[in-house]
């Protein structure tokens, strides 16, 4: 069994959703995750109101000028260890809106992103698959049958360093 600290982190990933200028297609799919058909509370995932309580930041939308600075501030307010998941084609790369004047196009231009979930919008199952892969990257499953095919060499999310928490 992994040590309790990682076990606790993997078993209760609290989530904060930030819409940085999306068409709310992906946001509705994220909220649909909480509803009975998909119910991510099975994995201990709770939608938290304040950035202080959240571990995983779900970002949707091609970051607009207005939202870029606020996105950075919300990310800074979150306590370590924190992860960013880019959901939807807009968050991964700007999607259809890439090249517009008010759009930065992609979350990785502002924040270090740990997981990318393409799709316009990605199915709720695809978002769950993305979160599961992120959790597997944090706590690589050793012996037991992997839930989904574990990423090749279970690369540590090279962007978000998990440094020790200074008490």
């Amino acid at each position, binding site marked *: 069994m992994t040590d309790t600290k990682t076990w606790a982190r993997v078993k209760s990933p609290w989530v904060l959703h*930030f*819409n*940085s*200028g*999306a*068409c*709310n*297609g*992906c*946001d*509705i*799919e994220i*909220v*649909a995750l*909480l*509803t*009975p*058909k998909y119910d991510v509370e099975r994995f201990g995932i709770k*939608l938290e*109101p304040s*950035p202080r309580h959240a571990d995983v930041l779900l970002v949707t*939308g*091609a970051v*607009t*000028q*207005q*939202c870029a*600075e*606020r996105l950075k501030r*919300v990310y800074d307010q979150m306590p370590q260890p924190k992860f960013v998941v880019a959901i939807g084609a807009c968050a991964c790369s700007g*999607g*259809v*809106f890439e*090249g*517009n*004047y*008010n*759009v930065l196009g992609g979350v990785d231009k502002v924040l270090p992103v740990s997981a990318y979930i393409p799709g*316009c*919008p990605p*199915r709720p199952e695809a978002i769950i698959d993305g979160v599961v892969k992120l959790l597997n990257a944090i706590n690589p499953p050793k012996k037991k049958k992997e839930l989904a095919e574990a990423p090749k060499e279970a690369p540590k999310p090279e962007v978000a360093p998990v440094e020790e928490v200074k008490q």
Partner: protein
Amino acid sequence: MSNAADMINLLESKFGDRIQIKQGTLEAGAIIANNGLHYDVLKAMIEADEKTGITAITGLDLGDKLGVYYHVHTAKPFFTIKAEVPKADPKIKTVVDIHPGALFHELEVTDLLGVVFVGNELQGHFVLSENWPDGVYPLRKDVDATKVQLVPTPEREANKNAEGRQVKIIIGPQHPALLEPEKFSVTVDGEIVTKVEPRIGYVHRGIEKTAESRSYLKDTYLVERVCGICNPIHAYAFVSTVEKILKPAVPERAEYLRVIALELNRLHSHLLTLGHAGLEIGYETLFQYFWRDREPIMDLIELTSGNRVYGSLITVGGVRRDLNPEHIPKIKSVLEDFRKKMPFYRKLYQEEPTLRLRMKDVGVLTREDALKLSVVGPVARGSGVDMDIRKTQPYSAYDEIPFKQIVYTEGDTWARMNVRMDEVEESINIIEYAVDHLPSGPVRVEVPRSVPEGEAVSSVEAPRGELFYYVKSNGTDMPERVKIRTPTFANIPSFLKTAIGESIADVPSNFVSLDPCFSCTDR
């Protein structure tokens, strides 16, 4: 003043040759009224017909002149007042004093095109972001918007509290109740709201400017992504405007398939809002039940179009995918199951004590205010204004399909939510009728890639209200100008008015009854 001829005669008698009226173009007629005459023409129209209101104001870059087109809807006919202003000093008289509903439209044209409305000047930016340089207007042809040099964000003035007991509460961009970033600074005196200032523009992706540099085929997909919840109606509005210029022979079966896609979308959008209202007033269980029963509808959308949310069925000249007959029994069974659940939900919304406590007499919008602010959709129909575009100006196959128009007169949050609840029932009837009477034949007709010179407008009934499109084409395969006026853009002023005088605790409940969609508002 029910038909166009009377209105035109009245205007000709009143203004004679000072204005030209081109009948038949842009729906009922285009009235060219320059150097300040647009104010008097509008005033005359408002006096003549109580239901007159401004649907949208389109700003155009006409080379050395800037065009300001006032799209005016009356009881039945639809007019456009064309005013032109020299680019050197773009000044024009505001119409906010005779029609308060025009406030937002004018501010947006100022921000994006640089026309100054005398009497309704804009400080700072309305839709654009704070670090956008002043004096540069993205919608002008000569500005290459992507290479604009941005200024550093101005120092955010500390939110100085208003004087006396008043406290300014910011319902900030990142807020659990709002699915989308939007900032409302609410000035509160004790518990009572005295002022609400919105700051939109967080989701402004400059779709109108980008639409000018992409082909009509690509634009259908771009325009759909204005709003993820009501995407087929955006595609249909754009496509029907282009088809008014191109005039292809769209097959009958395609029109019926379009109606099915639109009504499935209205169904899932209304269920989404009815559930979200529960979440806003702390009624988690209602939210969970509604969204659980919404999932089969999403599966239907995927069944008929291949993607849960972006069906991308509607394209210029018809529909991209036919409805294969084996799916029809599945559609009917899902709709039948949902119809069995309707009594439970209707009884809940009509009689649940705590829900009535939070929704009755909250955000009361009188019929006069609704007309003056020219609000649209369920917000208007909740206050007794019987304005459903599917009935007043039927499009696609709606004139052949029988359905009722839902109007409540109480005008509060409870009434608006119940309008949506009854419309869910109507949508089910429409889909079942359309599926039963589906004509046979092709679903698509070939359409040339470039569109001849011309301009057209069309307004359609989106789940949130009347959606208005204006397209001007210049013969190439890219549009010259695409103007999108979304329903929430017209409904937000009504929230600013009804929130005043009510307790801060009512703001979320009043706000969600608007069914706001900010990705629509900001485009």
